[in-house]
């Protein structure tokens, strides 16, 4: 072991922790509010990263797929509204049929014209290279946000319908795993299983402080992640929405009595968690420039460990935990080698779960319920 | 000694510094039907939970049929002859009626041979027969494949009593048995409890419905803020100044909203 590397390795650990932070916070947010381990988080993270890559590399099919996904979700939401609306049944039927017809026509148009490449051609001509960056960020955020709504509908809403019973708590877990499979395989069958690489606009921009190298995009992402998470926790503390969220987290049964519309707030939680994943994914693409269909699993499993370390349901705990776990990973590679990496990370997690299941800063109440 | 199925002395329990049970002591006579009443939050259910071992006691002793059960683990207390029903029905929602009752037999079937006896494969086995008979005695039909989650509330309440009874207790603890029942269901339950009592089992009942208490019980203990403030017959309870104060002095809206205050119950009574 070469001690002169230590400062650089510490920085490496912090930067890696920065990758895990937002994913860990996304996990902890949903687990804290809804007591549910959301397995779509890895998929959403990966999807955002891959969409960002696809748009940077000018894969028109990304836009086609996005358009189809967004359309389907919107159609579903309109259908929901329609069902709840006070309208005479014939109008509802006609409306539903019209919706289906409209969706089919749009689907057909998208599949036959494939507008993606044309959009890229126009974009590159009109805006230049920066246009793709902007488009990539917008598309990744929007798609993931919209998909979060879809996922909320098929996980939490069904859990709520059956709340209070042992078996049904596994329901959102199973549904979220179903989504994980769908999203991962959509990416694999569209872009394959290989590494997908692009160029970062920052190149390898970096600066050195003494013996330690800081990479500009990495540093920026770390600062950005921390700023976003900080903003989030301020939002949770001060705004009306934040108070509503906390009241759901603390007392899911009585929150409705206090005037909190759980049905309207929960989708917000999902969208926030989704946007965190998406931001993490976008930053990942910018930083590492190499993505594939499996990065979600790799990053998210370690992020889960970080979340547990910090204590379930605690945003600041997730930050500290994720940074720590990044450090543990880097230090174990540095000191004993990558072969042994799994043992310290997962051994630590196991130990914490058994000895101090609340993690460093967690509440005792969270996650104790049965499935 | 032999007269009392249960005697409690100097019971104390605090949760996080809050005294929930403060020096409570009373005795339940063999064959009696004792009611434990008091305003909301008086600690009645906590007494039940201490008795059945859900929580450990801080101080005090509990003697069941001559045996000190204070330190006996919860899972073993049922063997010594104490069984209970719950405030909110806690039947096993995914088990059938008969299976729920068979759970009540568990205390008497803890040998390995009993544990590995294939109840489900032998439809006519003695355990299932006993459970079915107990249900029929209670006037409950059983339907194959009917999980209890979908049964009416009153039926579930009675199944709870049957489940508790089949463990052959000496003392049956009933936590608000009449809560949430309509008139007819309350009558059916009362009839069942009369029958249980007639068979020699002692009843200890936590109940808000004073009408029900008057009809069923012969002895009353009143708790307020974790302390016993009264013990006597149901007829005396309305006249006790401390009891009146405890109920009327508490939030009147609460007394009005629930059919809880003994005063209201007494007014109803003939």
């Amino acid at each position, binding site marked *: 072991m070469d001690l002169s*590397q230590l400062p*650089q390795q510490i920085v490496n650990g912090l930067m*890696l922790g920065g990758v895990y932070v937002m994913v860990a916070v996304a996990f902890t947010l949903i687990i804290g509010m809804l007591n549910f381990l959301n397995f779509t988080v890895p998929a959403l993270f990966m999807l955002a990263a891959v969409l960002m890559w696809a748009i940077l590399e000018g894969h028109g099919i990304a836009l086609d797929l996005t358009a189809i996904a967004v359309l389907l979700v919107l159609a579903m939401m309109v259908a929901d509204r329609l069902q709840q609306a006070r309208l005479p049944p014939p109008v509802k039927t006609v409306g539903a049929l019209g919706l289906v017809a409209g969706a089919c026509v749009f689907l057909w148009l998208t599949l036959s014209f494939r507008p993606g490449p044309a959009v890229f051609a126009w974009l590159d001509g009109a805006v230049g290279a920066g246009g793709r960056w902007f488009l990539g960020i917008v598309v990744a955020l929007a798609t993931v946000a919209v998909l979060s709504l879809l996922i909320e509908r098929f996980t939490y809403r069904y859990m709520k319908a059956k709340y209070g019973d042992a078996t049904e708590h596994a329901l959102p877990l199973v549904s979220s795993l179903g989504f994980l499979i769908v999203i991962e395989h959509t990416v694999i069958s569209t872009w394959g*299983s290989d590494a997908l690489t692009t160029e970062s606009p920052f190149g390898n921009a*970096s600066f050195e402080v003494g013996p330690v190298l800081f*990479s500009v995009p990495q540093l920026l992402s770390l600062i950005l992640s921390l700023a976003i998470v900080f903003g989030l926790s301020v939002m949770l503390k001060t705004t009306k929405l934040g108070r509503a969220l906390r009241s759901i987290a603390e007392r899911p049964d009585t929150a409705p009595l206090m005037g909190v519309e759980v049905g309207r707030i929960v989708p917000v939680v999902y969208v926030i968690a989704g946007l965190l994943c998406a931001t993490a994914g976008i930053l990942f693409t910018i930083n*590492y420039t*190499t993505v594939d269909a499996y990065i979600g699993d*790799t*990053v998210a499993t370690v992020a889960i460990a970080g979340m547990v370390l910090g204590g379930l349901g605690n945003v600041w705990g997730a930050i500290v935990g994720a940074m720590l776990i990044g450090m543990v990973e880097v230090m174990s590679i540095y000191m004993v080698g990558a072969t042994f990496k799994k043992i310290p990370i997962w051994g630590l997690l196991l130990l914490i779960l058994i000895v101090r299941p609340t993690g460093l800063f967690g509440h005792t109440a969270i996650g104790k319920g049965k499935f | 000694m032999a007269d009392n199925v249960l005697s409690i002395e100097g019971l104390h329990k605090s949760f996080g510094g809050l005294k929930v049970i403060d020096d409570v002591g009373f005795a339940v006579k063999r064959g009696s039907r004792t009611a434990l009443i008091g305003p909301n939050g008086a600690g009645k259910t906590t007494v039940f939970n201490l008795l059945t071992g859900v929580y450990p006691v801080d101080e005090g002793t509990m003697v069941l049929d001559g045996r000190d059960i204070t330190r006996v683990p919860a899972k073993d207390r049922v063997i010594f002859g104490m069984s209970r029903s719950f405030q909110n029905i806690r039947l096993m929602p995914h088990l059938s009626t008969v299976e729920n009752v068979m759970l009540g037999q568990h205390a008497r079937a803890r040998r390995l041979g009993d544990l590995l006896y294939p109840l489900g494969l032998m439809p006519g086995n003695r355990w299932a027969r006993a459970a079915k008979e107990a249900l029929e005695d209670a006037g409950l039909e059983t339907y194959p494949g009917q999980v209890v989650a979908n049964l009416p509330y009153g039926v579930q309440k009675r199944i709870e009593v049957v489940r508790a009874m089949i463990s052959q207790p000496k003392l049956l603890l009933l936590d608000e048995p009449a809560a949430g029942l309509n008139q007819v269901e309350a009558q059916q339950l009362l009839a069942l409890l009369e029958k249980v009592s007639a068979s020699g089992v002692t009843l200890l009942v936590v109940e808000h419905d004073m009408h029900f208490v008057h009809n069923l019980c012969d002895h009353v203990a009143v708790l307020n803020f974790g302390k016993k403030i009264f013990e006597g017959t149901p007829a005396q309870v309305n006249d006790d100044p401390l009891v009146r104060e405890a109920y009327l002095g508490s939030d009147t809206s609460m007394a009005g909203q629930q059919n809880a205050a003994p005063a209201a119950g007494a007014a109803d009574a003939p």
Partner: protein
Amino acid sequence: MSMRKTLLAAGLVAAGAAAGTPAAAKNEIVIGASLGLTGIYSTIAKTTEVAIDIAVAEINAAGGINGRKVRVAKFDTAGDPKQAVVAVRKFARDDGALAVVGPFSSSEARVAFAAGERAKIVQIPNASSAPKLADKFSYAFRMTENEGLQFQRVISTLKNRGMSIKSAAIMYGTDDVVSKAVGLFIMKPIFEKNGVKLAKAPIGFETKAVDVSAQVTQLKGQKIDYVGLAGITPVAVRVLKEMRRQGVMTPIIGAQIWADPEITRQMAKDGEGAVFSAWFWYKKDERSREFTRKFVEGNKKRGIDKPFPHHVDASAYDAVYLLKQVMEEQKVTGDPDKVAEERTRIRDGLNTVVFNGVIGQICFEKTGDAQLPGYVMTMKNSEWVLLGEHKSLPCKK
């Protein structure tokens, strides 16, 4: 209940469709192709399918094998060893196949070999290069070159061309059998044997790792001519990019694991100066160029954009022609009554065959591993440039 009926119906559909798969008809010769068309190897296995299709189309256009048409029975294993066993049993028992091209990965091959040995049917993987996989099986023939031999060829070429390689560091995948073997048991001894000083003990990384900064930091400040990189393409690209990010500008050197045409794009300018080897060179001769042309075109038709064939694609293409040659030498008929005996004749034929394909000259050792040529390449301006050519060794019999 209706759900169970649905399940039952689905089961029946599956069973019916499986039972309905036509066994070999008379006058046709069936070759199985075990491909990982979905799952983790899908990107690379899809082009293998194209290569096989080209070979079969060419053979059929030229009159088939011994006057019989060739049909390929394909099975998608999704990269799952269990499904690779399904594939070989299906080819052997249901499809009446005479031989199998595939399975793709070493994980699949090592379980499929055991099943193929019991079914007595030849399997020719085109990409499995984990050491000592086929020795115990008489029906296993791997059309891949020994990683150690290839790496020695890389070092020899560098020396012949007078390129300086005095010191090196090794980075290897710890959880992938080929990567680990190449890193620890091939690169290390070969470097030492050739007088290359190892600046550090080999540094490991996990194949699925997304961040290798901690490993690359350990390279910093070392005076190294080359970094020996033993890892499959995706993680090799990650390591390379991380090296450049941290300012380690040393070129990488490797054997065959990441010799994928895609690296011209994936590594792009970061791959400048990388040295590696492959057993196929698409500009070798007119036949190779012709195959390359058809291959690129065939892929384009399926919406896949490839610059030129991967050497495993060339292996799949040659494997079909190799089977043709052996079948012709052994006068195989594909007659369903004689399938069992003809499969064994194909095996015996493969043991002695000497074949010339787009790869070059091919023969098989007793271990079931092929002797293939080696082409040592370097990357220049995101293009592959040939540094040296090594003819395949003769097989000891």
